[in-house]
């Protein structure tokens, strides 16, 4: 790794079109990477994900990405941003689709949002993120972002739980610890707010 460059992990889980558009707009250079050995060549890694978290974890594990991500992030200080299911995979486990373990960067479990509080699922649309100190939110006065999901990380009051969102129940919407970042929302389709957050990840993290 000599210069700043970005890998988007390509494991055929969901739409990366919008993400590519956003990075193009920010003039961030990126490559789609499907070979787990290659991610150490990059300073920044994005782990996207849409659909079933269990299926996503299975694919990551089978392809060897789980081990290579751990190595790159925990031993080689590569910066990683997980988006939506990509963030959920950073937890200890998910109960979606019969259940699965996660990569385990955080001890939190990913659980289905509670419907009995009178909500509709999926949780879809822009919602607010409550943050205190967070590099990702540097310079952002508006903190509304686009969510579309039915499962989320449980709050445990960890100091890395950098963003909390309320949908008649609180869940972790942003994680941030040293070189590890995750957002439950989709910054790439969250208007200017999301572009600024993505820019922060590349320039300030």
């Amino acid at each position: 790794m000599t210069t700043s460059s970005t890998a988007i992990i390509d494991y055929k889980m969901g739409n990366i079109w919008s993400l590519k558009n956003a990075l193009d707009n920010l003039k961030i250079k990126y490559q789609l990477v499907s070979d787990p050995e290659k991610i150490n060549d990059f300073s920044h890694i994005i782990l996207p994900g849409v659909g079933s978290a269990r299926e996503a974890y299975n694919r990551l594990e089978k392809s060897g990405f789980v081990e290579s991500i751990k190595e790159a992030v925990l031993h080689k200080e590569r910066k990683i941003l997980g988006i939506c299911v990509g963030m959920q995979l950073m937890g200890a486990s998910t109960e979606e689709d019969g259940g699965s373990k996660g990569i385990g960067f955080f001890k939190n479990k990913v659980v289905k949002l509670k419907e009995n509080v009178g909500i509709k699922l999926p949780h879809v649309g822009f919602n607010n993120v409550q943050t205190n100190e967070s590099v990702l939110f540097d310079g952002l006065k508006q903190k509304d972002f686009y969510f579309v999901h039915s499962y989320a990380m449980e709050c445990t009051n960890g100091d890395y739980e950098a963003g909390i969102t309320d949908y008649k129940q609180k869940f972790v919407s942003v994680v941030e610890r040293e070189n590890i970042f995750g957002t439950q929302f989709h910054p790439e389709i969250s208007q200017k707010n999301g572009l600024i957050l993505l820019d922060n990840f590349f320039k300030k993290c």
Partner: protein
Amino acid sequence: MLKKRIIFTLHYDKGFFNLSRNFRLQKIGDLNWLLKNYNFLKIAESIDELIIIDVSRDNREHDKFLENVSEITKNIFVPVCLGGGIRTLEYAKKLFESGADKINLNTSLFHDPSLVDEISKTYGAQAIIGHIDFRKKENDYHVYTNNGAKEFSKIDTAFMEKILELNFGELLLHSMDKDGTGMNFDYEIMKFLPQNNKKPLIFSGGAGNYHHLKEGLAHKDIDAVSTANLLNFVGDGLINARKVMLDEKYPLAKWE
């Protein structure tokens, strides 16, 4: 708190963007017109979501549609939903690979419900909007498919319950009678929705001015309103409407 959404819908037909009035199409302009003259990218900074539907009545040209979509969406940073003529998993896949965050299913919802399962298995239910075109006939409401050309069924609560059991994420109700008229949404259709409906609801057809959008957004059971009228919110129309609504504390997202 979850915000409500203003959605813009574009009706595409063989190279042109159209005004639809009771499902009769009027060509307004091509891609160049949309981006240059209409300044759509500016308007897109004031919407929460974009739906683009290929409403071609015959021989849809999928590749040309997707070329247009790609030109529109590369500088727009909101969720994009694509629809029109989705009959197979292969075409749905193509749409997801060409920029769709979601797809809009209408005719297949009724004629091939197994397609909903197939698509949701791969992409998740949250990636599918179930779209119902309805029209009032005497005192009853009926569902139409195939761009409004075929009557499918009378609507009652049991019918709605059955449709809502399908594995899609959001329900879009579009009034064909109000389509393009600017005469306000048809709220009467709400009486057929089951009390325990858990799917987010998008209301569409008839929004002629920002008062209509406000009334829709204020309704407790409606999560998003859609306008497809290229001429009602021309210029700064929608941008100003959003500003006014934010000033009046309507629950809409705020952006930098």
